């Protein structure tokens, strides 16, 4: 039972009610989430990568990445006991470990930003196409379907070419506007389900217009699903970004795991037996993707709207 607010006849303010309700809801959520081992593991892995991303400039000063400074270093040197060279050097003599650490940044930044963009677009389109019947809703639905079946890589290549320079922000936009259809379909289905319930009818009778119905009633019921889904989208976006980098479509000035894989492939690291350059970037990608997937799946279970919990 949720706690009663009033004691000794005092009437709480609306703000006090909201605050207390948020506190109760958050504690309940944390408690529920903590019961899932895989989810906690995912959070742990993610925290690790976030810390590395934040501390990269401190742990591995920028000079380590300068190709000119690395001219004197041996190329494809195997791992040594020196901290900076725990994973040896790559094809230009730079520290692999430093590159790995710096590579967390674009992955996380692009992953999260592009997913947020996809979430916003997907939610707006999904709710609107579920709420508005007739021509408007129908055309949004067709738009979603159309984007869903667009072949991903060719689209991304074309967009990057059309939009000019290969800057990281272009990549964010490109991935953002190609990853929203999945969310939109999910949101649309949930919107239809929510709107079939009697409380939407009640909302109409109370005087709520289209906008109020969508924002006050549909959105809160849709958000938990959206958040879980977005977390999974991050995983997909990071994989996509790695693919782009591997294909050489990413801004070459940025150190990324995909770029490392591309360099390894191009300079024949496999033939030279330089496993320390080939395998770690792949492992990092897997690690981050796994983290987001575990968290996303756990959120899906915890936030399941059928259970009626927050």
């Amino acid at each position: 039972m949720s706690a009663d607010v009033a004691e000794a006849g005092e009437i709480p303010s609306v703000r006090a009610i909201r605050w207390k309700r948020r506190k109760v809801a958050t504690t309940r959520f944390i408690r529920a989430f903590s019961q899932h081992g895989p989810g906690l593991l995912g959070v742990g892995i993610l925290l690790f990568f976030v810390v590395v991303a934040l501390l990269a400039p401190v742990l591995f000063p920028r000079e380590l990445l300068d190709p000119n400074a690395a001219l004197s270093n041996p190329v494809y040197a195997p791992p040594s006991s020196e901290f900076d060279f725990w994973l040896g050097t790559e094809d230009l003599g730079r520290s692999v470990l430093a590159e790995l650490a710096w590579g967390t940044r674009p992955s996380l930044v692009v992953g999260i930003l592009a997913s947020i963009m996809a979430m916003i677009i997907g939610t707006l389109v999904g709710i609107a196409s579920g709420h508005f019947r007739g021509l408007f809703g129908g055309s949004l639905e067709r738009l979603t379907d159309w984007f869903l079946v667009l072949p991903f890589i060719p689209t991304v290549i074309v967009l990057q070419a059309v939009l000019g320079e290969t800057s990281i922000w272009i990549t964010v936009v490109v991935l953002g506007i190609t990853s929203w259809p999945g969310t939109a379909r999910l949101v649309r289905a949930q919107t239809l389900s929510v709107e079939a319930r009697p409380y939407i009818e009640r909302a109409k009778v109370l005087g709520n217009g289209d906008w109020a119905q969508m924002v006050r009633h549909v959105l809160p019921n849709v958000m938990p699903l959206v958040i879980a889904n977005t977390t999974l989208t991050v995983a997909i976006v990071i994989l996509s970004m790695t693919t782009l980098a591997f294909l050489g479509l990413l801004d070459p000035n940025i150190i990324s795991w995909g770029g490392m894989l591309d360099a390894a492939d191009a300079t024949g690291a496999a033939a030279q037996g330089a496993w320390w350059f080939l395998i770690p970037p792949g492992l990092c990608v897997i690690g981050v993707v796994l983290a987001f997937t575990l968290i996303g799946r756990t959120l899906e279970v915890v936030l399941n709207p059928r259970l009626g919990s927050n």
Partner: protein
Amino acid sequence: MSSAAESVEEAAETVVEVDDLTVTFEGREGGTARAVDGVNLAMRKGEIIAMVGESGCGKTTLARTILGLEKPAAGRVLSHGEPLQYGGRALKAYRKNIQLVLQDPTGSLNPRHSVYEAVAEGPRTHGMDDETGRVSRALSMAGLRPPERFYLRYPHELSGGQRQRVVIAGALALDPDVIIADEPVSSLDASVRGEILALMLKLREDLGLTLLVVTHDLGLAWNIADRIVVMYLGRVVEQGPTEEVLNNPQHPYTRALLSVVPEMHGTEQIVLTGETPDPTKIPNGCRFHPRCQEVRNGVAEKAGVLEACTSISPAILSAQIPVGAAELGHDAACHLVTPPPTA
């Protein structure tokens, strides 16, 4: 006459009126379903009207049309004499005056909104002032006291009866003139119904609320309604004061309905054959004649109206509005009651 009916006569102001209303839908397998097929109704201030009939008779559609949730194909809905406008702002203003209580209190409340938010939704939508005061008063009037104890609760933490009170409070928060209740107690436990019905009577006494209760339960009508309107396949087949209609039913359909109410021990059950026909295929003549027991047992033929029953539709009943001190009549749309004019 009970005191409730007396006070209704004094305040004879018509709050909502329905004028020759027709509402149609696309049928499931093509064809047009005439859910409401020519209905007149007048609701006066402080009156409690029960609209009874089986599923498919159009009572829910009629209620929804009065609320502005459906648009009529013909006829109109009048509020205080003014026809209903379906444009955004006018409809919203109308919604302040006429509210809805649905059948399923669990489904009627957004599970993510607390009781406070559920009741405050109406005042917030219309930008009314003193939101907290309104919520507090509405919850008290609906019998949830002290109101503060319920602010933070969520629907799934309340019992069925409490949830229905929250829905009623949500309607009351807008200070409406009329509340339409669609099967307000049918999904509640039997022992809890009495309290909710008593609440409705109290709201009529204290606030002068007009209530239109849509139900299939004749016992409910007997408990709280001043007037009863019986519907069949989109038309009103009988209407009048509750005691009159239920003690002395005129229309064969009303008689059959009453006979299957289990509390009527001793009366022989008239169990009609078949099920309610399809609103897309309304029979010719009197729409009840294929199931009518008076046609089956030959009474109609003996009275010489059988031909009329199969070919002429009984006249649409007009809305009952007493003039001056005149009592409400008791009408039935049946050729046996009102023989058709001979050609």
